[in-house]
């Protein structure tokens, strides 16, 4: 054989090793894929029932539209178990009379998760607004104005390092900077103010914003700032140089060029990357632990107790109060979805009754964040096809 075939393969074992190695690599990749899918499937399997009910139309939205509360588990002597809210627990107990065998209460696990969802939405709103403004401005400078030099290198280094700072350190920073030091306008400065600048009609007091949506939102803004800057800069760089040159050749100033012939083409990309920023901001827990989040709150942010207006209050008083309500949304602590999950996971016992609230919240949270991320990825692919210069 070898006489007629100078190129005969000499060893099967090498080939077998080759195949084995290839399968090993494939196994590694598929293991990661499998674990991811398994986690997603497990959460869906256990969490979906929180959104379903046995009767038509099978979808139960109460989990999404109720505030969290204490869960009462009532067992009667036939061993039938009812899970219910505090108010209904009373009536059920009365009905049962001495048929009642036992009652258990589990904090946080009852009701729905409307409060945390609203809180997370507010935090994301503040953080994305701040981060988008700062981030896009920074990206414009980096991509349009900057010349090579020390300053730019420092900025880039800072952005890279900022991206690597642990989120809990951002939490400490937010606590020190926004909760305890940020300036407020007030007539009566607090004792803890770092310093006070009198402005005549009022004082600018560096006493902090306390734990509230603003503090949390600003902290989160700096967490996602590197993401937004990097992505925005890429989008700006992707606009062909020709657009700028044409505009400049027509005598437009640099700013006019940026405003009219660069930004409009970069906007879709920037917005896409913003969605990724939203997903990131919504998913972070550590930065909001000390700056915004509350374990439990039985009201929505705008349902603040304000002194009732006298019956003869004028239009202006009503208007003032509603403005106060609106602004008050940002100066209060809120429940946030990730922190709510932390509370559910760490502070209450694991049992069959708490499971639904736990997995339900995790499922809703994962779906929210994952769909944001997926939208962003999809849009990016879509936009890339659409805008090809």
């Amino acid at each position: 054989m070898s006489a007629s075939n100078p190129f005969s393969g000499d060893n099967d074992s090498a080939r077998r090793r080759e195949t084995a190695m290839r399968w090993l690599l494939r196994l590694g990749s598929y293991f990661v894929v499998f674990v991811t899918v398994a986690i997603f499937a497990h959460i869906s399997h256990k969490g979906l029932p929180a959104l379903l009910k046995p009767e038509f139309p099978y979808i139960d939205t109460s989990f999404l539209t109720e505030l969290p509360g204490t869960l009462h588990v009532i067992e009667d002597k036939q061993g039938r178990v009812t899970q219910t809210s505090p108010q209904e627990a009373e009536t059920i107990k009365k009905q049962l009379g001495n048929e009642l065998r036992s009652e258990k209460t589990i904090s946080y696990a009852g009701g729905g998760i409307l409060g945390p969802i609203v809180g997370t939405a507010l935090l994301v709103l503040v953080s994305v607004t701040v981060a988008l403004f700062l981030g896009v401005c920074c990206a414009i400078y980096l991509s349009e104005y900057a010349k090579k030099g020390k300053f730019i290198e420092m900025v880039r280094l800072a952005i890279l390092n900022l991206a690597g700072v642990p989120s809990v350190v951002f939490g400490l920073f937010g606590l020190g900077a926004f909760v305890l030091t940020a300036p407020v306008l007030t007539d009566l400065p607090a004792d803890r103010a770092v310093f006070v600048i009198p402005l005549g009609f009022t004082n600018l007091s560096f006493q902090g914003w306390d734990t509230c949506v603003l503090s949390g939102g600003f902290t989160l803004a700096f967490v996602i700032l590197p993401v937004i800057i990097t992505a925005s800069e890429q989008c700006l760089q992707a606009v062909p140089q020709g657009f700028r040159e044409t505009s400049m050749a027509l005598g437009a100033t640099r700013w006019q060029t940026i405003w009219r012939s660069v930004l409009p083409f970069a906007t879709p990309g920037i917005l896409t990357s913003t969605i990724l920023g939203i997903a990131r901001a919504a998913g972070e827990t550590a930065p909001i632990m000390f700056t915004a989040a509350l374990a439990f709150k039985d009201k929505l942010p705008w349902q603040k107790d304000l002194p009732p207006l006298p019956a003869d209050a004028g239009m202006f008083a009503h208007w003032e109060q509603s403005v106060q309500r609106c602004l008050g949304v940002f100066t209060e602590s809120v429940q946030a979805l990730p922190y709510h999950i932390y509370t559910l996971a760490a502070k209450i016992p694991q049992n069959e009754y708490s499971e639904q609230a736990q997995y339900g919240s995790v499922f809703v949270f994962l779906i929210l964040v994952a769909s944001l991320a997926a939208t962003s990825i999809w849009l990016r692919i879509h936009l890339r096809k659409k805008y090809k210069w």
Partner: protein
Amino acid sequence: MDFCYGSKAALQGIHLDVEYHRVTALIGPSGCGKSTLLRCINRMNDRVAGARVSKGEILVKGKNIHDADVDLTQLRKQVGMVFQKSNPFPKTIYENVAYGLRVHGVKDKTAIDEAVERSLTQAALWDELKDRLHAHALGLSGGQQQRLCIARAIATMPDVLLMDEPCSALDPIATLKIEELITQLARDYTVVIVTHNMQQAVRVSDFTAFLHLGKLVEFAPTEELFTNPREKLTDSYLRGTFS
């Protein structure tokens, strides 16, 4: 032999006998299929999806290289190749030359040392580099890099050496050195060289094949082809009336 990339035919009806221990040059205008033909000989075209020999056969040492029992690694061990652009690995000079031996399972240190010395000597690099064998290969000059690639190719003692425009990226002096090298190598190896440069073909080759639009126009001893071409097309190409 016919060859196509997917449905696009690249080579048609090529019939070529390459002489043992001689230099054969393939010339022709750009896109005529010289490189494709060359890459067929050690089946480098297998790397391109959809590329296949659609008709005919390529015999190396009397064996059709597309037969099922041909081991690709053995074939390529015996049919070495040098590329247009020098592409040493980002390793040391020594490791570059030893690479071919190592992948074919040679573990004996002294055998590798000998082979490295022999191939570097044949590639006329030994005297220049013997003191810095463990320096990084990417630190060499362009001509040295290309000769290193040749040394790497001949380290496994192939019978056939394929060269795909080995001098196109080099300056004239480096080109001259490589050409001298090729003439010397022809003593031990069967060399097939693709070139753009007709003077080079004249200088180094014993036989020349002229290809045009995927067809073999003329194949003859170099002297004969350049002084007295049989085909009109060859003649006009050599005169430079088209390119």
